[in-house]
C-alpha cells in the first residue's frame, strides 16, 4: 500500500522544490556579485592607461582610469521564468477540506494492482509582475541604500 499524503502537501512540496532551486541560484549569484568587492567592501578595480583627452595634454600623455570591474561586465542574473510540473496521482478519500493522494511507491517497480481514481495534475509557475505595493517598497529601499559618506 502506497503511503498517503494530502494533495495540498504534495503541491506545496513541488512548489517549494521550484522555489528552493531558484533560491539556490540566487544565493550563488549573490556570492558571485560579492567577488567583485574586496574584503573592505570596495569595488575591485581594473586600472587602465588611456591616451589623454585633456585639452592641455601633450602628445603621448596618458590618463589613468580605474573603472570598477563590475561595471565592465554584463550583469545578467538568471531567473526561472516559467516552470511546469505534470504528473498523475491516485486520489483517495476526502479529509476535511483536502483530498488524500497515494504517494508513489518507492523502490523502483510500480505496483501492478488496480488503481483508484486517477487525476492528471499540471502545475505551472510563472514569474509574476511585481505588485505596486512591493514596487513602492523597493523604490523606498533603493533610496535608503544611497551612498553615505564613510
Amino acid at each position, binding site marked *: 500500500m502506497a*503511503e498517503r*499524503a494530502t494533495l495540498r*502537501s504534495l503541491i*506545496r*512540496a513541488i512548489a*517549494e*522544490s*521550484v522555489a*528552493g*532551486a*531558484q533560491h*539556490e*541560484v540566487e544565493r*550563488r*549569484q549573490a556570492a558571485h556579485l560579492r567577488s567583485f568587492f574586496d574584503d573592505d567592501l570596495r569595488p575591485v578595480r*581594473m586600472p*587602465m592607461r*588611456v*591616451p589623454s*583627452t*585633456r585639452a592641455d595634454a601633450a*602628445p603621448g*600623455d*596618458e*590618463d*589613468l*582610469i*580605474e*573603472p*570598477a*570591474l*563590475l*561595471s*565592465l*561586465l*554584463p*550583469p*545578467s*542574473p*538568471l*531567473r*526561472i*521564468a*516559467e*516552470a*511546469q*510540473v*505534470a*504528473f*498523475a*496521482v*491516485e486520489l483517495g478519500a476526502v479529509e476535511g477540506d483536502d483530498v488524500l493522494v497515494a*504517494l*508513489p*511507491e*518507492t*523502490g523502483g517497480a*510500480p505496483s*501492478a494492482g488496480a*488503481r483508484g481514481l486517477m487525476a492528471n495534475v499540471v502545475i505551472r509557475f510563472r514569474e509574476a509582475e511585481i505588485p505596486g505595493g512591493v514596487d513602492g517598497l523597493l523604490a523606498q529601499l533603493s533610496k535608503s541604500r544611497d551612498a553615505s559618506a564613510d
Partner: protein
Amino acid sequence: MSDEPKIRNGQFLGLPMADLIGGPLLAATEAQMALAKSTAAFIEEVGAMPPAQFNFDRPKAGGGQEGETERVRLDVPLLSIVPIPSLGIDEINFKFDMQVTSATVDPADGEAPGKLRLEGVVAGSGPRDPSADQAGNYNIDIRASTKGVPEGLARVLDMLNSAIAPSVKPGA
C-alpha cells in the same frame, strides 16, 4: 542543496526534487559567470596593450598654404577598435521526467501538517509507453531567462559608472 548523492548498498536513491531542478540552473549560472570572467580577462589583457598608432597626412590646420599638409599621429586604444566578447546565456529551457524514488512525510509539528519531501531520479528519455504505469513519474519543464538588472544593482552600477574619470598618470 545536498552535496552528497544518496547511495545505499551501492544503489543510487535519488536527489531532492529541488536539486534535480536546481542542478541545470546552477550549471547555467556557473557558465554565465565563466563567460563574464572571460570578458573581464579579455578587457584586462587587451586594455594593458599599447595603443595602436596610425600616422597620416592631413591638410594643415589653421589655414596653411594650399596643398600644405601636416603629419599627425593617432593613438587608438585597442579596446575601442576590437569587438569585446560579451556572451551571456539569454534563456535556458530544460525538460525531463523525474521518477520519484522517495516520498516521505515529516511528523506533524503541532498544528502544522507534516512536510512532504520528494526525491527522485531523472527517468529515461526514450519514447514513453502510454500503457505503462506513470504513477510517480513527474514531467518537468523549466524555462529560465535573464530579465534586466535588479534595481539595487542598477543603482550600484550607476554609481560605479559615474565614478569613472581620468586621473593624471603617476610620474607624468
